[in-house]
């Protein structure tokens, strides 16, 4: 899990590399570094953020270079462990994203052969291997070195005196940006938006030899070609535009995201997912991680409610070890980036079991789209904030749309559901218009160190998601609970210092939630409840309420999630947290 970039052309490489790296910081920001070739190789790296590095890096005149921003896996964050890593002679530099499983063996072998390795990282073996195999042909040396590696080794190599970059992709993403007499490499599209909209997605096993005006690709020893794509995302999507944080900007984009995602599907009568078997959504298995997992849990209730068939949801990271699937399962794998390693492994396993795999993802051309049988795109645009917001909502919209054609409800109910779904942008806008009130509640919550989120039925996953948002950006310990489960343990923790945020929907869970709220109040926890408009019963029962626009209970997760995103955002802001770059986290997890 890291971000890597490369540039080759006629311009000075350094400012371009630094700019691109800045856009990839969401992938990691423990440390960063650059290497630029101007005949000789100049390398500069440190345990700082990209902005800080830009201030101190010495001028470099070369027009070929590579860069890296790191999320530590092998070896703690430090200047020595930062990339790029070099060979003994300092003539070859490598940036790498992934983990090399057999690096200990390789280290020993290289050390025995007299190579001096300066860091604890797995990456460092790559430049030394290239050095070892170099016989005058840089590209051939890289290709030979890669044969020794096991694991994920997406990387870019640069050699002094060479007028080309050699890169490889294995498991972690790598994109080539095609410019006018210049070419780029990056882990992800946003890094390149300032320079080009023409990209090529490399696939596993690809080796790329790139000069300023040519791109040559090889895979499995023979030349290949990859299709060039035109990117519709704009630089605009990767700027804050007035907002203090990307997270708040992305929260505010949600009405548009819902509209755009809906516009991508044709009509409720035409299924978006092409499912195998006569059973439709019966026995569907949903796999995901993190926020996407919460979307999957909501999806389970949506499908069970509408199609009246049982659905199973599992964490992708658990499923890949002991999960069971049979070929009659349709599987839905939800991954925002389409690159999450756990999700990709899950897809592989599902395919081996003979399942039909539909993936829901936000990134066109991502790995998941290539390994799954079918892709349903969410049209959320690039999400920069580490805490996912708009992609969660877009995933929910995709799941509603996926389930509606299989709904076993009468036509008038179906019509009214489709109508309500289309009106969600306005309802979400109303939650956003209520922002200052939610910020007021956040101010009070910010002083606590333990907060419980509860919900029931379709809003139970919303409570989980609300708690996740809060803990990841505000560092407050938050736990999401099904309200019926509080009595099995957590009651012991309630009290005046442990507030409860309750998500209440006007569905069949309303009465039991009221009972839970009474029990909680009896234990003196302050309660903040999310309630629909005109709900006077709850107002009398709890300490404070956030009023949510009235929607069909089936769609209540959408509006409730937005309110909880704002709540988490303002709590974190009140506590002065670095909201877009929470500590120890990174966005696309391409490691286990």
């Amino acid at each position, binding site marked *: 899990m890291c971000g890597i970039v490369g540039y080759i052309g006629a311009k000075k490489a350094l400012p371009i590399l630094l700019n691109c790296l800045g856009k990839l910081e969401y992938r990691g920001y423990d440390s960063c570094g650059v290497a630029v070739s101007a005949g000789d190789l100049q390398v500069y790296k440190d345990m700082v953020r990209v902005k800080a590095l830009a201030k101190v890096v010495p001028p470099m005149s070369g027009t070929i270079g590579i860069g890296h921003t790191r999320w530590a896996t092998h070896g703690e964050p430090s200047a020595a462990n930062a990339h790029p890593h070099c060979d003994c002679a300092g003539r070859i530099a490598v940036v790498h994203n992934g983990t090399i499983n057999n690096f200990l063996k390789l280290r020993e072998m290289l050390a025995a052969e007299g190579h001096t390795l300066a860091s604890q990282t797995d990456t460092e073996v790559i430049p030394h291997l290239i050095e070892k195999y170099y016989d005058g042909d840089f590209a051939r040396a890289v290709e030979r070195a890669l044969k020794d590696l096991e694991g994920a080794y997406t990387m870019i190599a640069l050699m002094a005196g060479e007028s080309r970059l050699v890169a490889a992709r294995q498991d972690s993403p790598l994109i080539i940006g095609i410019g006018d007499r210049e070419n780029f490499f990056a882990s992800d599209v946003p890094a390149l938006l300032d320079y080009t909209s023409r990209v090529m997605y490399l696939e596993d096993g690809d080796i790329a030899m790139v000069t300023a005006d040519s791109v040559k690709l090889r895979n499995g020893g023979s030349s290949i070609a990859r299709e060039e794509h035109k990117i519709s995302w704009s630089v605009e999507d990767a700027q804050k535009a007035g907002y203090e944080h990307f997270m708040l900007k992305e929260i505010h984009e949600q009405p548009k995201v819902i509209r755009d995602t809906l*516009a991508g599907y*044709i009509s409720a009568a035409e299924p978006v997912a092409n499912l195998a078997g006569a059973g439709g959504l019966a026995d569907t298995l949903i796999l995901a991680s993190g926020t996407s997992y919460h979307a999957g849990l909501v999806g389970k209730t949506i499908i069970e409610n509408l199609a009246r068939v049982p659905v199973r949801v599992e964490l992708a990271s658990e499923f890949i070890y002991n999960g069971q699937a049979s070929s009659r399962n349709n599987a839905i794998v939800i991954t925002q980036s389409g690159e999450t390693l756990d999700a990709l492994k899950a897809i592989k396993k599902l395919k081996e079991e003979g399942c039909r795999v539909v993936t829901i993802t936000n990134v066109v051309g991502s790995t998941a789209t290539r390994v799954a049988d079918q892709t349903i795109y969410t049209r959320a645009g690039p999400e920069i904030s580490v805490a996912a917001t708009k992609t969660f909502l877009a995933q929910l919209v995709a799941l509603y749309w996926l389930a509606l054609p299989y709904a076993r409800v009468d036509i008038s109910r179906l019509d009214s559901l489709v109508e309500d779904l289309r009106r969600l942008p306005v309802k979400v806008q109303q939650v956003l218009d209520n922002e200052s009130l939610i910020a007021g509640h956040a101010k009070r919550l910010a002083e606590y160190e333990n907060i419980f989120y509860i919900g029931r039925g379709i809003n139970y996953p919303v409570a989980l998601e609300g708690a996740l948002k809060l803990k990841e950006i505000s560092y407050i310990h938050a736990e999401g609970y099904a309200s019926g489960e509080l009595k099995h343990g957590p009651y012991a923790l309630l009290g005046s210092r442990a507030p409860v945020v309750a998500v209440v929907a006007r569905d069949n869970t309303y009465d039991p939630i009221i009972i839970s709220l009474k029990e909680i109040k009896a234990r003196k926890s302050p309660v903040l409840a999310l309630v629909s408009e005109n709900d006077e019963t709850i107002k009398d029962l709890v300490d404070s309420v956030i009023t949510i626009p009235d929607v069909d209970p089936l769609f209540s997760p959408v509006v409730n999630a937005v309110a909880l995103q704002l709540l988490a955002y303002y709590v974190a802001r009140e506590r002065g947290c670095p909201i877009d770059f929470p500590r120890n986290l990174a966005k696309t997890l391409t490691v286990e």
Partner: protein
Amino acid sequence: MKQAVVLAAGEGQRLRPFTVTRPKAMLSIADRPILEFTIEALACNGLRDIILVVGYRKEQVYDYMGSGEKFGVNITYVTQETQLGTGHALSQAGDAVGDEFLVLSGDNLIDARTIADFVGVGPQAVLVKRVSDPQRYGVVNIVGDEVKDIVEKPKEARSNLVNTGIYAFTRDVFKFTASTLDLPDVLNAMIKEGYTINALETAGTWLDVVYPWDIISLNDAVLRGIETSLGGTIETGVSLKGKVVIGKDTVVRSGSSVYGPAVIGSGCEIGPHVSVMPATSIGDNVVISSFTEIRNSVIGDDVAIGPGTVISDSVIARGCTIKGRFTALGGTTDVRINGESPSINVGAIIGEDCKIESNVTAQPGVIVGNFCQVQPMKLIGGRLPDRSLVY
């Protein structure tokens, strides 16, 4: 002149119900916010460094305008926390501007020609426009090219030239904005101090939205200038005439007619058998069912309109659900506003997120607030406050 300050912080109370949830500058005309026309006019005249003063519901301005990249400009945002006046708004931009700059209002409708000559005029200067009803505006009295004074809404106007709210200033203006809240007063104060303020008259578009029904005539005026651009899916058997804009991912179904000038946004489902008649703007994600006719009207985003409906001379804000057989037709009506009763030709003015059940008839000039609900078979008229229930 390379820099412009655009004032877009205001609420526009007289435009309620539409401004309860959005700033005046973000009201939609021809499927684009009013503010966008000003930004576009500046970009066309080579002014790309724009400072936007925002305040009331500023997030909606951020969400739409972004960093300005979409419009070929670079936007810096400045916040006016409380809307005390245009001079006060300008003073918020004090740190962001250079020596000379233009000042414009983000909630008047202008085009590139309006300011084409003015951008070449040095400060201090004001752009004026000749109108037939000057007593509605700030009347500018001039001698030669020089402004003598500005009188706000005089009983008797001594000239037909009115203040467009478009100025060219040097930083000297900030000496006055500290103590004077509104820009016309600032100008008067500057004249008193011996500054020369030049007036330049424009023949270009300059329209003000004051009341909700002004949106209808502005929409008509703007639509006359559109160029055809067709996105989405247009099924066979659809008749398109005149200048028509249809957004991406929109489906226009068989048997429908779209007679321009008309704009339909993206992600809409129109038809089958729907007539979109001239001077109509339709937002994004709108569904219009069979046998409905819409003419000379503005329909917001996320609206659903049922079958057999007739709508003309009306404004329907975003998120409304209107069931079948709704009727809202224009007619001459008197509205009472601030003690005046102007006679206007208007159908229905409907605020956001209203739910109107089947077979409802709207009397000409009805103003329905936001979040209202109307039961089937009702006749609605007059003025309904926000969250009204008609049953």
